[in-house]
């Protein structure tokens, strides 16, 4: 808890202690793309200045990133100034008291599993764990509860904007993405939604490698 990096993580997480600021973060995180301060102000039921104050605090804490775009779709003279937009930063922050290093342990386990060629065992364990959840009839609710940030793509397909295993998946893509597919497969079975939806590996940049389609 004493290295400069630890303290930055602590500051980042602590900045969410303010309920209004936390809500502002949630609004941005729930957006399918970068979100403007007007949208956040509206969701908070607060003024534009207050929304901007909290958003910029979140940027300073490293939780949000800023980009600029003209929202009118116009360009050139007369299009107006670009709007300041906010999105969730790629950096991850974790604080553990007392110090624990579960990610380091996960990396060692992943490497060992890969070397042993025990992928199939991992997938079976993942599917069984996934299927242990409660019944649920709402696919969006079920996936949201698991941290996947589901986003409908038409009525027949759902993409997942967040990968709960992101860092590990970047380091061991086939192993961890295969595990994730098995988890989601299990979740569908456990919730009773497997008659209606099917999960498949459908990798693309910038989102979870699994998508769901209507059966």
């Amino acid at each position, binding site marked *: 808890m004493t290295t400069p990096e630890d303290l930055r993580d602590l500051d980042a997480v602590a900045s969410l202690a303010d309920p209004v600021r936390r809500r502002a973060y949630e609004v941005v995180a729930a957006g399918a793309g970068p979100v403007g301060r007007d949208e956040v102000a509206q969701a908070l039921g607060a003024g534009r200045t207050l929304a901007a104050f909290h958003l910029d605090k979140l940027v300073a804490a490293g939780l949000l990133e800023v980009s600029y775009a003209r929202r009118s779709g116009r360009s050139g003279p007369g299009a107006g100034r670009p709007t300041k937009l906010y999105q969730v930063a790629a950096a991850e922050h974790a604080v553990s008291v007392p110090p624990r290093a579960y990610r380091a342990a996960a990396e060692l386990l992943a490497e060992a599993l*890969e*070397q*042993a*060629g025990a*992928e*199939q065992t991992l997938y079976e364990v993942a599917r069984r764990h996934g299927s242990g959840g409660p019944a649920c009839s709402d696919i969006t609710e079920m996936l949201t509860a698991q941290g996947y940030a589901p986003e409908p793509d038409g009525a027949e397909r759902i993409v997942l904007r967040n990968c709960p295993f992101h860092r590990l998946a970047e*380091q061991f*893509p*086939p192993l961890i*993405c*295969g595990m994730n*597919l098995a988890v989601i497969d299990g979740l569908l079975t456990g919730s009773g939604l497997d008659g209606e939806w099917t999960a*498949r*590996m*459908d*990798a*693309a*940049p910038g989102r979870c*490698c699994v998508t769901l389609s209507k059966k």
Partner: protein
Amino acid sequence: MDAFHLAQINTARLRAPLTDPSMADFVEGLTRMNELADRSPGFVWRLEGDNGDGTIARPADPLRIYTLSVWETPEHLRAYAYQSEHLDYLRRRREWFHPNGSEAALVLWWVPAGTTPTLRQGISRLDRLRAGGPTPEGFTFRQMFPAPAVRRAPSPERLAREEGTAPEPSPL
């Protein structure tokens, strides 16, 4: 145009010969994966081999296969390998390949743009990675090394300065 491109070789030991029915999905996928690679952004070159399917078998051990390719950048190779349909193919690798154990199965290294590596060079990079861990001569996605710095011809002004025949630029 980048001066260096990224070469990769990877290897696997097949559970059965490619003609075995248990390998049908793997063989069927090869054509699709090669076509996907060929049209992927940043793809430069791949060794097609005698079969034309991109798998090169070692004569002394036909179950040991290699693929060798060159990409403009690591990001291009990563996008093809892990952010495309290829990932699902990789996910099923244990159905077709023996585990690699502690032996590295993939090595990356930089080649001057416009040159293509040979299979022998690739296998030697793999051996070096296995023997001594990642170095600028052979590394992995988890431990990358940057491309060699490109030496540009210095400007006449800079040459003159370095030779002491020109005054230092004024701080103003």
